């Protein structure tokens, strides 16, 4: 009596569940099917207004249609999402990835080698160091989009007020730090953001530190090499003598310091120009840009912080068409101009750097042509800097241990020493072939 009813009820429920699930699954699977008409590609990017370039591509290419998926910036969850999607085998066709995470994606086998679609011929179009970043041997894993050559943004008004020379060497930078802090105890030469590993690695890059090297079929790890330890000692000295602030960068307090002149410089990449302009509008006319101070007087060696690339993921059903889009997006002059004007990015395409829409004086920087400075720097960024395949772990460990240093536990040098051993251990655990030290 009762039992048959129950089991029938169950059967119905089970059937209904199966029906709903199968509809849902069909809906998922059918999105990228197209037997005739243009090839449909999806592209994950966080670059503002990049839709304009995508639209231009779609209107000039009848056989390919690219759909842009606006995502949050890589480290705010998009990389995690991409890696998860790669794991599940349903990554999009194309994606935005910063240089420092290319080896991470390469090491999960996630990227298509674009050299088979003619990408190698583009080498001479791009700023040399950016091309070096996207290649491993003969393989081309990404097309460079923008870059972040580093310089010193400084408060011209404060330097004049306290009669400080604009530093050209790190030794001078430190003298200025002392002089400024003595003249005004509430003012600091700059902020040392302990949580921002990318910032510190930019300085290491300039000093000639080489954390990762590819040696045949294994990785050489040298987080605490001589150059890196020199940079660490320098900033440890600044910290110990209370010559720098230690606010986390891009926090409200930090923006406040930019506005109020509590910090006299920001050592940052070209994209910082826009950060200052939009977050400290009242300081218009007070800022100027000078090349980064040097370790050896008279040299011209620079580092880089940020910049990203366009990649084709392994799950793409149409890698050739995707490769075509990736190349077009970053080499078509109108597309690059749209990205420069829509997102204020600084392109990796050589020919664009001297174009009139970039290379011009800006009113905010007292009519200085700051991009002239950056063009020189861009050509002198050290080409041989190599990122490792576990940068997420390196950045996290670094940010935690540097934070502990600012809380009085250890020094930057001891932090680099422990970072060396934790990185080697971590990579060995993951099965990479590693030579430490």
């Amino acid at each position, binding site marked *: 009596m*009762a*039992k048959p009813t*129950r089991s029938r009820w169950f059967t119905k429920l089970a059937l209904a569940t199966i029906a709903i699930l199968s509809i849902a699954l069909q809906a998922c699977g059918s999105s990228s099917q197209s037997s005739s008409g243009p090839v449909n590609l999806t592209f994950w990017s966080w670059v503002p207004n990049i839709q304009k370039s995508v639209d231009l591509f779609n209107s000039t290419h009848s056989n390919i249609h690219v759909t842009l998926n606006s995502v949050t910036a890589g*480290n705010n*969850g998009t990389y*995690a999402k991409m*890696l998860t999607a790669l794991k599940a085998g349903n990554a999009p066709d194309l994606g935005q990835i910063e240089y420092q995470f290319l080896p*991470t994606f*390469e*090491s*999960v*086998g*996630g990227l298509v080698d674009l050299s088979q679609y003619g990408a190698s011929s583009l080498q001479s179009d791009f700023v040399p160091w950016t091309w070096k970043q996207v290649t*491993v041997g003969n*393989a081309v894993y990404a097309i460079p989009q923008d870059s972040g050559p580093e310089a010193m943004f400084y408060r011209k008004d404060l330097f004049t007020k306290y009669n400080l020379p604009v530093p050209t060497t790190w030794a001078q930078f430190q003298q200025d730090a002392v002089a400024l802090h003595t003249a005004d105890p509430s003012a600091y030469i700059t902020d040392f953001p*302990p*949580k921002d590993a990318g910032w510190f690695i930019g300085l290491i890059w300039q000093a000639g530190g080489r954390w990762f090297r*590819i040696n045949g*079929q*294994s*990785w050489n790890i040298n987080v605490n090499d001589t150059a890196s330890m020199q940079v660490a000692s320098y900033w440890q000295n600044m910290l110990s003598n209370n010559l720098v602030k*230690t606010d*986390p960068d*891009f*926090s*409200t*307090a930090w923006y*406040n*310091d930019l506005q109020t002149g509590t910090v006299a410089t920001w050592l940052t990449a070209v994209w910082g120009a826009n950060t200052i302009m939009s977050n400290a509008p009242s300081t218009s006319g007070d800022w100027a840009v000078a090349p980064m101070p040097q370790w050896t007087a008279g040299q011209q060696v620079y580092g880089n912080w940020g910049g990203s690339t366009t990649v084709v993921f392994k799950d793409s059903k149409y890698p050739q068409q995707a490769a075509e889009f990736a190349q077009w997006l970053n080499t078509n002059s109108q597309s690059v101009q749209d990205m420069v004007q829509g997102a204020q990015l600084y392109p990796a395409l050589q020919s664009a750097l001297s174009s009139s829409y970039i290379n011009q004086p800006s009113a905010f920087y007292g009519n200085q042509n700051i991009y002239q400075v950056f063009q020189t720097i861009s050509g002198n960024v050290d080409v041989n800097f190599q990122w490792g*395949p*576990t940068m*997420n*772990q390196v950045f*996290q460990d670094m*940010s*935690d241990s540097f*934070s*502990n240093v*600012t*809380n*009085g536990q250890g020094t930057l040098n001891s932090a680099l020493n422990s970072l060396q051993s934790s990185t080697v251990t971590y990579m060995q*655990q*993951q*099965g*990479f*072939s590693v030579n430490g030290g």
Partner: protein
Amino acid sequence: MMLGSKTTGSFRLKAGKIWIKSIPYVFIMPFGILFLLFFIAPIMYAFYSSLFVVKHSGLGLSAPVTVFNGLFNLNQAFHDPLFYQSLGRMLLFGVVQVPIMLGLALFFALLLDSVTIRLKNLFRMAFFVPYAIPGVIAALLWGYLYNPQLSPIVQFFHAIGWKSFDFLSQHAVLWSMANIVTWEWTGYNMIIIYSALQAIPHELYEAAKIDGSNGFNIARYIKIPLVAPAIVLSGLFSIIGTLQIFNEPSTLQYITNSITSSYTPNLYAYTAAFVTNQYNYAAALAVLLAIATFIFSFGLLRITTRQTGE
């Protein structure tokens, strides 16, 4: 219904008995299925994931393989000093914050219950409102009040000469977080205790008054003992909540150097899974945290039931 022969009758009775016995299970079935699907299954899956590791080879330019590695991850997590530091931090937090919060909740509940103040509903609402504010928003609001450059409170202390005053310093930040959690959850716990107070029959108060009890004694000898089970329940929830604190540190970590990525167990597991891409290790941490939470919450239940003699 007509009964046929005796044998069929007893058979039918038996079948009926089985049916009656199974009725409770039918009623808990909807819960049971969801419980299995959304609670037991994810824990089992986390345990299963924790048994694997991702292995690269050489330079690692080809896809890595996921291989079975037994209890390696669990063993590593079990010996991970960062996990114990975060757990220890949360225990210290709980030992101080939970009693303060429950004390306040009890105090406010008694106040609302005893005094025939006007605007009682308004006060009840006012105490409860912080709970309705999402945790991340609460942390942002307090973050503003903690920020040395912007906070009027900090600026006040600096103005009267306490220059080193900093809510976000290494030693203060845990208690700054405790303050946010207390602010958010006191009202919620107050409502639980207040509801328990409402259920106490008023005859007890009348009898106590006739025996000469004043308001304080009524609270001390009648109300508090009778709402003790509600307090135990809130305590249990609070302990589980403390071990799972995530919103506050994950929001405040962007404005202070005092909070590292392994500050609380949940933040540590989150970082392992979504920042450093160690899914399998994160699964192991999650399993350990579930076990730790289980031990602490059931430990508290056993202690309290033993004390009340049930």
